[in-house]
């Protein structure tokens, strides 16, 4: 683990001498090879929320989670690569909000830049908080603290500060290049850590067929991705084909992969248009393999027999001891497989849902798998991989924040016309500021139990309608700045109203919805999410169109390079046809279809 940190910082220092202009710092000089950007593209997203969250959904919903890849991420990545990247890269915008200014107007950009800056800070804070909690639960630093005689309460602070300092250092030194390089490193580390876990787990349950039988014993619907998708009651996620296809495939997936600067920034760092378009497509290839890596641990965890032994990991003088006792804890007693029940920290009792069943703490599925299968040695690797995933998510947020802050807020509204050196210094200090704010968020999360859920909810309100704005902006030349601005706001409001009026069954009113009044019950919170996104998208789309038709369009000459119909086709390089992004895109889509059939 120490070794990894040394290398991470080493890369930061090695890259420092290349950082001469703000372009180098914020955009990696637009000179990186496509494969590096491609891996960073998925790694920026492969934060802890992904690794832990997909394992958790795997344990909760089964193989249907693979929809997030099959119809959520991969088609969206192909779409952004083939159709949208020419505008992002070709418009010479340096960030996604800047593209909005070029295409629409200042106020749309300001709205997007502000909401985006706030969200990145909060989400890296949440990431930090989750990591510190996990470190506490898994007792990673307990031994270290004991050997120095420090109080164990300091572990939380220690883990937050440690991750903050490391991420800060390498971004401060090397900017986006350093972040991207580290994301690639983290990508391989995550694979190195989780692949043996899946292999061991699969071997234990008796291979693929063994897993099928074992999971079917828990819930026969969980081994199928598509079966029962036509009707909400026949699949574990409780969502029917329209909600799934529209909500996840069209709105949420595309909204995230096509408009979030967090991932787009890595593609915009590549060296030319051809590679910028190839970046998301290259990224889609390993993305197809990821269901095996992150969903299967969850599935295996739920299908294993309940452990009747607890293992306490103790670290003395660098040697890690595992003490196994045969008293099942309350968490495991109430849980299922390796997934413990959620315990209310105040009362010490298992938390129940509205119908009285214990709630399972699905987030522990993947970490528990690590502890269950890995012996000392490789366990260190697994935990490092987990930490790496937290950091890669955090780093992506932080670089996106410093770019948007410097270009879209500072340079545009606070201090215009400064020197390049000045903006680079601002970018560095924005990094520091962003990380400090994230730390504050992490501490706020301790005191307010629900803050994480609330924040994620608010993000979904803001993000859901975004894709409609970009779609109209890029493919309909008549859409106007006023239309986009009003559409964005009304889409967010629609998402909020939808959430306030509906409730998933078996949930209490409040954070899960229904805080205005309950007019509709959804079979699961996923169904509620998807439909909320559809409503937000639809509202934004309709409002933008109506307002655009009532306002004056911009002259067409200003929109060249920003709108599909007014942009000349990108010059075809002298490559063979199979090297073109379109061919690659079709190959990736075919692969995705094959994957869906495999999981069907």
């Amino acid at each position, binding site marked *: 683990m120490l070794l990894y940190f040394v290398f991470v910082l080493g890369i930061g220092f090695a890259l420092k001498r290349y950082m001469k202009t703000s*372009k180098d710092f914020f955009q990696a000089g637009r000179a990186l090879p496509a494969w590096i950007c491609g891996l960073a593209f998925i790694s920026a997203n492969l934060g802890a929320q992904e690794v832990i969250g997909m394992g958790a959904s795997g344990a909760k919903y089964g193989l249907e989670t693979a929809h997030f890849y099959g119809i959520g991420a991969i088609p969206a990545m192909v779409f952004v690569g083939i159709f949208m990247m020419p505008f992002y890269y070709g418009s*010479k915008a340096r960030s996604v909000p800047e593209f909005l200014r070029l295409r629409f107007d200042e106020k749309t950009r300001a709205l997007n830049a502000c909401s985006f800056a706030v969200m990145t800070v909060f989400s890296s804070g949440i990431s930090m908080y989750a990591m510190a909690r996990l470190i506490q639960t898994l007792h990673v630093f307990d031994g270290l603290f004991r050997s120095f005689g420090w109080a164990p309460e300091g572990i939380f602070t220690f883990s937050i500060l440690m991750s903050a300092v490391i991420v800060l250092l390498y971004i401060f030194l090397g900017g986006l290049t350093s972040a991207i390089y580290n994301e690639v490193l983290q990508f391989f580390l995550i694979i190195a850590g989780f692949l043996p876990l899946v292999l*061991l787990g699969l071997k234990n349950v008796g291979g693929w067929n063994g897993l099928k039988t074992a999971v079917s014993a828990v819930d026969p619907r969980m081994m199928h991705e598509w079966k029962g998708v036509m009707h909400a009651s026949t699949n574990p996620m409780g969502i029917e084909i329209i909600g799934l296809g529209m909500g996840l495939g069209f709105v949420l997936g595309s909204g995230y992969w096509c408009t979030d600067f967090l991932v787009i920034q890595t593609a915009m760092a590549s060296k030319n248009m051809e590679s910028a378009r190839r970046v998301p497509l290259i990224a889609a290839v390993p993305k197809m393999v990821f269901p095996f890596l992150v969903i299967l641990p969850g599935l295996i965890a739920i299908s294993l027999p309940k452990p009747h032994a607890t293992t306490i990991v103790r670290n003395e003088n660098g040697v890690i001891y595992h003490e196994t006792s045969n008293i099942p804890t309350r968490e495991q007693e109430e849980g299922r497989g390796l997934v413990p029940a959620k315990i209310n920290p105040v009362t010490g009792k298992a938390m129940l849902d509205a119908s009285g069943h214990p709630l399972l703490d699905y987030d522990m599925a993947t970490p528990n798998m690590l502890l269950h299968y*890995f012996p000392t040695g490789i366990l260190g690797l697994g935990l490092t991989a987990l930490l790496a995933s937290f950091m890669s998510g955090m780093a992506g947020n932080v670089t996106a924040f410093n770019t948007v802050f410097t270009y879209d807020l500072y340079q545009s509204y606070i201090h215009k016309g400064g020197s390049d050196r000045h903006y680079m210094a601002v970018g560095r200090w924005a990094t520091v500021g962003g990380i400090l704010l994230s730390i504050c968020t992490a501490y706020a999360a301790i005191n307010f139990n629900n803050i994480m859920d609330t924040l994620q909810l608010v993000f979904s309100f803001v993000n859901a309608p975004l894709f409609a704005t970009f779609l109209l902006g890029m493919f309909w030349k008549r859409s106007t700045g006023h239309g986009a601005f009003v559409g964005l706001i009304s889409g967010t409001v629609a998402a909020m109203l939808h959430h306030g009026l509906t409730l998933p069954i078996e949930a209490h009113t409040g954070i899960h919805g229904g805080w205005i009044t309950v007019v509709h019950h959804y079979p699961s919170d996923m169904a509620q999410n998807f439909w909320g996104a559809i409503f937000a998208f639809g509202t934004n789309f309709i409002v933008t169109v109506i307002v655009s038709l009532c306002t004056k369009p911009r002259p067409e000459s200003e929109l060249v390079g920003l709108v599909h119909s007014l942009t000349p086709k990108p010059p075809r390089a002298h490559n063979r046809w199979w090297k073109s992004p379109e061919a690659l895109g079709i190959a990736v889509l075919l692969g995705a279809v094959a994957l869906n059939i495999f999981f069907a």
Partner: protein
Amino acid sequence: MNLDLRVPMGLMFIFTGAIMTTWGIKTNGNAALYERSLGINANLWWGLVLLAFGLTMFILGQRSQRRLAKEPPPPVEEGEVRRGH
């Protein structure tokens, strides 16, 4: 940008792999330790895999570094407009 990522990455995996392999050999036959990984010496085997991966990356990276060093540096694009002021 003339730092090939494959070199430091290869180095990192070589070190990690070497440490794990050594640890795996040292603890080989320790049944209690490997009970949780189904009796497989996960450290040894996975260490070897990582070692091989690291070496491949390192060699590939070195090779392209050397090729780059031989070639003349690519011409600097003059038409590039500095923007943002």
